[in-house]
């Protein structure tokens, strides 16, 4: 019994140590973010904080940000969440097909998808402007959702396909033998098993859409739809910049987003395929 308690204590210390190390690593990684916090508390609006801790912290930047950017935050969230849903709906079946179905043209399809990732974003945005202008999707949140989702779909396909290559066909075969259709076996077996990759792709789709600037800029012409990435320019003029308001906006905007990400990350559980074969 004593040995067991000792082992337990030792493991808990090791775990606690890991947490401590993780916090240090995170602190190093997030130091620039801390610096943004530092700048956001400067009264002057410049980017030149003179010391580690702001000598006279001022919430002026935050007051301005809260007053101005609430609507923009909602816009960003709507676009990002919409993008996640649409991306997963379109990309997941395609990823599975390219992973498990035997098409002769899979390599070509993958090549096309990879090429799509090589195009500079601004080239795509310019082409999309013309298209949207013709079909009337400018200045709309659905329009931005479609654009961001279409941008994230190739990435989603490539990532999920890599994960789905490891889905044992024996499971799906078993379901098919039992009479389940292709779509049914896909939805009830493959999707749950691929939960990790779906959540991962969802995370990235969210991040791509959240931090997108080029589509938001190009595909809006009236200034009534401004996600946060565009909204910060209220404080960045052609000649003068109020960086504390900019940083405050960025910090505030990231709070709801990081909450969503933390919640989502919890679902990337270990060994999703384990036990399924048995």
């Amino acid at each position, binding site marked *: 019994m004593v040995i067991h308690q000792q082992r337990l204590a030792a493991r808990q210390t090791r*775990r606690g140590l890991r947490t401590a190390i*993780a*916090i240090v690593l*995170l602190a190093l*990684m*997030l130091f*620039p*973010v801390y*610096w943004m916090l530092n*700048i956001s508390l400067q009264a002057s609006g410049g*980017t*030149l*904080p003179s010391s*580690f801790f702001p000598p006279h912290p001022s919430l002026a930047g935050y007051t301005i940000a809260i007053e101005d950017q609430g609507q923009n935050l909602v816009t960003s969230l709507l676009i990002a969440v919409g993008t996640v849903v649409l991306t997963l709906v379109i990309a997941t*079946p*395609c990823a599975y*097909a390219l*992973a498990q179905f*035997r098409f002769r043209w899979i390599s070509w*399809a*993958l*090549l*096309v998808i*990879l*090429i*799509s*990732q090589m*195009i500079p*974003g*601004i*080239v*795509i945005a*310019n*082409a*999309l402007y013309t*298209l949207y202008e013709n079909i009337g999707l400018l200045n709309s949140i659905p329009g931005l959702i479609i*654009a961001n989702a*279409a941008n994230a*779909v*190739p990435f989603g396909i490539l990532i999920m396909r890599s*994960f789905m290559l*490891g889905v*044992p*066909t*024996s499971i799906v075969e078993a379901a098919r033998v039992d009479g389940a259709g*292709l779509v049914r076996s896909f939805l009830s077996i493959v999707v749950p098993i691929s939960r*990790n990759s779906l959540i*991962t792709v969802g995370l990235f789709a969210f*991040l791509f859409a959240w*931090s997108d600037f080029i589509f938001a800029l190009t595909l809006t012409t009236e200034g009534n739809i401004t996600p946060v*990435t565009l909204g*910060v320019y209220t404080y960045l003029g052609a000649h003068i910049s109020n*960086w504390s308001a900019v*940083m405050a906006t*960025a910090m505030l905007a990231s709070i709801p987003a*990081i909450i969503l990400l933390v919640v989502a*990350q919890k679902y*990337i559980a*270990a*060994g999703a395929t384990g036990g399924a074969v048995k």
Partner: protein
Amino acid sequence: MSDAEVLTATEPTAPSSDTAPARRSGRRGEEIAKILFVVPAALTIIALFGYPVVKNLVMSFQNYTLRTFINGKAPWVGLQNYVAVVTDEVFTKAVVNTAVFTIASIVGQFVIGMLLALFFHKNFPLHGVLRALFLLPWLLPLIVGSAAWRAILEQDSGILNVTLENLGIIDTPIPWLTSPDVALIAIILVNIWLGIPFNLTLLYSGLQDIPDELYEAGALDGATGWKAFWHITWPNLHAVVSITLMLGVIYTLKVIDIILGLTQGGPANATQTIATQSYQRSFVEFKFGQGAALSNILILISLVFAIVYLRATRRRVDE
């Protein structure tokens, strides 16, 4: 060990052949259903990317200027744009910088991402929250990030130099962004920082997908620590590692925002890459044909990597 081999990437098995007519029409229906899995994605990709690819290619053979936007005329000039950009004196430096920037960024991001993913693979308190917080840099607009980094890397009063000097590691401030020799290193370091969350998240998910039974079985055979990594983790991670590296290379070749935000390609063209040159040709100098030519050169380079990747994965699947 045999379980591990069984549970690595299995090749898809062909549908069972059957000659009964009912099954044949069912198979045809299945063929249609299989195509329908792909159709929405195919439509999306062609609609969004088809036109830009074609337009970019065509534009690189045209004299495309500001005037073209007004009257739509872009005279054909053949390979003139390509000749112009390749013989430009900054081109060689841009190519070298692109190679150094990409290779160093990928190696740095991947190794650190891998180490962090392995580190977070264990279950310890708060590991989920802490890992999610690593994504925070991606939530902040790049213009905010580059402003913060410029402040940190400032030669005289930036906190990095101040800290290094206070710790006694350096005597004179390092000219991070102001020396042609050091600037490239500085942007590589910032780009590695930017790329860590990407690698960490993908590799971590890949690790999570490896069944615990493999490790338990391996531990019984005496494979722990480094051996476990080499014989169990690495082979099972192959597909995720390949796609992470592949996409990492493609995305890094395209990077412009962080470079332009930190150094504008300077000082004295020390941090120009093919991507930044392409952007500046098009949107600062309004020589869109040349900008398109440069981005096509970049696409060609990416294509080489893509073909290598496809060859490698195809061989793997066929094994």
